[in-house]
């Protein structure tokens, strides 16, 4: 707390809170995967969430997005309590995630997948008369997203025929198609060959500032380059939260997590 008070002045972002949790608890039987988590992500933030395997990072994303129902506590999105909203209702309010393990549409072409997501965001999902191809704007938008992710050349390929690394980009493309206001990226580079993960992070870094980003990532180099603020989760509880320099020096963080990675 002392450190975070000191460093607050260094924060480059505004004070409006985009996403916040209050006393969030998740129990799986007797096991507590999230214990009294109170996290605040500022509007426009580049915020990272780190912690050892099994710390509960993915569980927290699941709770934020409504994929899991919390045992207690609240999720507040831009001042609105969304704790009891369904997943798709939160997505419509701009809270969008990617999955740590790809969840894609294996038998659709890359363009179809992203067009599907674009159509949903544009509220076309109930249109049943005109063919998808007639919604030119949606198609163009999907094409732009593919171009941004360097996927245009495989737009016509079936998702299942792509290498995992490229599929990973579709995972992000589907999220971008939802026009996130708050984007939760759960280890976006997991499974991406080292040579390609940098390009992936450049793409993420280029996203406009209006998009608030909470990133889960294991590669400390990437985290420190990307994040302006870092929360550390250990055993389902928040250990600390601060700017990268302070986190890097925090002895407790080094002990539980950074130990071997800090040298890199």
């Amino acid at each position, binding site marked *: 707390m002392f450190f975070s008070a000191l460093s607050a002045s260094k924060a480059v972002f505004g004070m409006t809170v985009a996403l916040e949790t209050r006393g969030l608890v998740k129990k799986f039987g007797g096991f507590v995967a999230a214990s009294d988590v109170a996290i605040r992500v500022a509007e426009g933030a580049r915020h990272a969430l780190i912690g050892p395997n099994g710390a509960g990072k993915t569980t927290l994303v699941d709770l934020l*997005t*409504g*994929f899991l129902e919390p045992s207690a506590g609240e999720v507040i999105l831009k001042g609105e309590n969304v704790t009891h909203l*369904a*997943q*798709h209702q939160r*997505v*419509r309010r701009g809270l969008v*995630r990617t*999955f740590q393990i790809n*969840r*894609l*549409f294996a*038998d*659709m*072409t*890359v*363009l*179809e997948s992203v*067009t*599907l*997501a674009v*159509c*949903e*965001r544009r509220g*076309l*999902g*109930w*249109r*049943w*008369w*005109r*063919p*998808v*191809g*007639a*919604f030119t704007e*949606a*198609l*163009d938008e999907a*094409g*732009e997203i*593919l*171009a*941004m992710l*360097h996927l*245009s*050349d495989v*737009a*016509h390929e079936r998702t299942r025929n792509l290498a995992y*690394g490229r599929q990973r980009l579709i995972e992000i493309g*589907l*999220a971008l*198609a*939802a026009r996130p206001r708050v984007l939760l990226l759960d280890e976006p580079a997991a499974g991406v*060959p*080292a*040579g*390609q993960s940098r*390009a992936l992070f450049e793409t993420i870094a280029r996203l406009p500032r209006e998009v608030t980003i909470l990133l889960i990532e294991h590669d400390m180099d990437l985290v420190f380059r990307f994040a302006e603020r870092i929360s550390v989760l250990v055993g389902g509880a928040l250990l600390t939260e601060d700017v990268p320099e302070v986190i890097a020096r925090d002895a407790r963080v080094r002990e539980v997590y950074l130990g071997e990675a800090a040298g890199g």
Partner: protein
Amino acid sequence: MSLSSAGGTRSPSAPSSAAGISAAAPAARALRGAARWHWAEYVFWAVPVAAYFLFPENLVLLSQIAITALFALSLDLILGYAGIISLGHAAFFGLGAYVAGLMSVHGWGDPLAGLAGAALVTALGGLVTSFLVLRGADLTRLMVTLGVAMMLYEAANKLTAITGGVDGLQGVSFTPILGLFGFDLYGRTAYLYSVAVLFALFWLARRLVHSPFGLSLRGIRQNVVRMPAIGAPVHARLVAIYTLGAAYAGVAGALLTQTTQFVSLDVLAFNRSAELLLIVVLGGTGSLYGALLGTVVFMVAHHLLSDINPNYWQFWLGALLVVIVLFARDGVMGGVRRLNRVIARRKGGKA
């Protein structure tokens, strides 16, 4: 990890956005063209017309095929597109059959009104039961659909005053279609009527599956977990398609009543649901045409095999099913698609 650098030799310079979009253009064109009619489809639909002239003696069987095809189409909509498995789809077929029959018995013998009435009642039935069916996973759905169909069967069996019970509904008769085309002894009107209704509803379904709504159904089937994460209300979509599937089945049932002028309990029988599932799997799910082809193959095989060997035809039908499921995945339609790909490759090889 160092191995991957070989794969990273692709030029890192980003293509300009415009170039990127034009690179995606073939995919966009394919998507735009997907809804267009293929010449093979015209050929396909010429077959029932030709059959009318080629097999005037077999119009009763042909009508049954058209009606079953519509029934299969209804199951393909919910199974092939939304991934809802049902072992009790005859519930809606039977309900539709009884609605049309009862309407005629009680003085409302206009065929089109009968179809509309059946569609309405079965849609309502689908809507109500969808909330039960959609609760669980596949096994639950199998059991719930089966259970609902069994309950309906027993209800129709018991309510003899209304349904005629095991004796069937007596006194069913219909006025000429649109006041013009009366049902004749040879089954000509019945056949053309069945094919016309089948085609109209097929056309509607075809539009639907190529629409954004249809795409979202495919999304649900392929990855139901992802759909809410892109903002899609999965449950509502499933309720909608289940309701529509029920209505389609209801219309098929009504057609059977109208073309045979009779309703018996077997419209609700388990056998009908099971056979239907077999037909749709045989034909290949999720393409609409698979359901139609599956029906034709099944009904014709049934007809021929039972002619050859009236006692053991089911043996060969079973064998056919096992062969198809084990060796020709995606059924008849899967085979057609593979053939298509081979031909396309031959053509492409020259280029």
